[in-house]
């Protein structure tokens, strides 16, 4: 785990996310106990495990949404609880629910995402092209298919300026092509110094990315 700062964009500092002794108990069941890991820029963490092994709980704890029963999550050495919005400005999360408003158009959804965070590297047009939603700008999200909505949720990652992506089953409902597209996007993101934490039932095919794996079961 060595980084060389020369590979990064000049204005991007090194970031790292740590889990220290994380414990999670749900309904009397210990999902994980004393979980430790650390990932830094340009790395991908793939969390594996069977259903109910606590993947989603772990992701929510990493986001600061869920409550852990012990331990701490740190961002660049500081507890995320202390950082609050200072952590959230680096974080983008796509959960089980994709956070897409069905009564808003594709464009409005992405505008809202930009307003809540900071606009990112790509313009909305570029992002829509990358996720293959070009031409759907003015379509309301309820008219999209499930896979397309998932793509839209992922487009949100591209139009905002977040270096840490936390993704819960990002490939659900997506076709092969979409998965391949998205794997390329993850590779680009890490190449630019980003961090990705994701759960997936699919095998991840990211050439060139430094993928770590954790198995919860």
């Amino acid at each position, binding site marked *: 785990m060595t980084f060389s700062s020369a590979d990064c964009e000049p204005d991007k500092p090194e970031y790292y996310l740590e889990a220290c002794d994380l414990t999670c108990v749900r309904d009397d069941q210990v999902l994980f106990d004393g979980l430790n890991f650390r990932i830094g820029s340009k790395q991908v963490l793939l969390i594996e495990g069977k259903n109910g092994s606590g993947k989603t709980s772990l992701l929510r704890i990493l986001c600061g949404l869920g409550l852990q029963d012990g331990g701490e999550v740190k961002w660049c050495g500081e507890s995320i609880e202390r950082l609050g919005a200072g952590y959230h*400005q680096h*974080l983008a999360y796509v959960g089980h629910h994709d956070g897409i408003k069905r009564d808003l158009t594709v464009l409005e959804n992405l505008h809202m995402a930009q307003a809540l965070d900071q*606009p990112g590297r790509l313009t909305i047009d570029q992002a829509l092209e990358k996720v293959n939603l070009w031409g759907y700008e003015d379509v309301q999200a309820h008219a999209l298919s499930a896979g397309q909505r998932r793509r839209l949720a992922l487009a949100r990652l591209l139009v905002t300026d977040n270096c840490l992506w936390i993704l819960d089953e990002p490939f659900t409902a997506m076709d092969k092509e979409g998965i391949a597209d998205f794997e390329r996007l993850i590779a680009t993101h890490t190449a630019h110094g980003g961090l990705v934490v994701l759960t997936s039932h699919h095998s991840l095919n990211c050439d060139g990315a430094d993928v770590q794996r954790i198995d919860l079961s």
Partner: protein
Amino acid sequence: MKQVVCMKRRSTLNAFYFLLKRDLILNFRRRAEIANPLLFFVIVITLFPLGVGAKPQLLQSMAPGVIWVAALLAAMLSLDRIFRSDFEDGSLEQLLLSAHPVSVLVLAKVAAHWLVTGLPLLVVAPLLAVLLGLPVDAMGVLVVTLLLGTPVLSLVGAIGVALTVGLRRGGIILSLLVLPLYIPVLIFASNAVDMAAGGLPVTAQLSMLAAFLALALALAPWPAAAALRISLS
């Protein structure tokens, strides 16, 4: 170059504005639902003359209380809308994870809720007051109490919804949590209208309502934001 930087760093006010606009658009696209609390308000008020008899003096003395109780219930029934749909589609998680203070975002959502459910009451209330035979002198005061009071209902209600949004049967609990906190508003508002109908000065009551509004604006978004965090954890 400097302008580019400004464009890139969007302010919290901008987020407030966008969220307000988004909620208004969403409400506009579901117009039929906007009308529901308003219709409820009207129907409840028309029930009273039918229920207690149409004696003008009785109705007149009851009018301030009836209008305010109906406003309270209408506000409460529509509260769930502040956070429910955002909770269900995951937008609420996105709000909590945004780079801006959640309390400001909560305030935006409450503002949208008030514009959609509170403001129409102000327009309809004078008409209903006429039906109940409230003196014309009290009409202005009635509108002012609603103007000062209904935002408090939305603000305080937001705390209650934030606490119950994760529950499957949050509705009844919500009323148990929120109504006691509404009582002071009800007391002062209906008392003010009552006094105005008797031709008495009401500045004291209106000042109290203004104090409630200032307090709720300053404080309510914080516990609401904290409650959302708890409900989503």
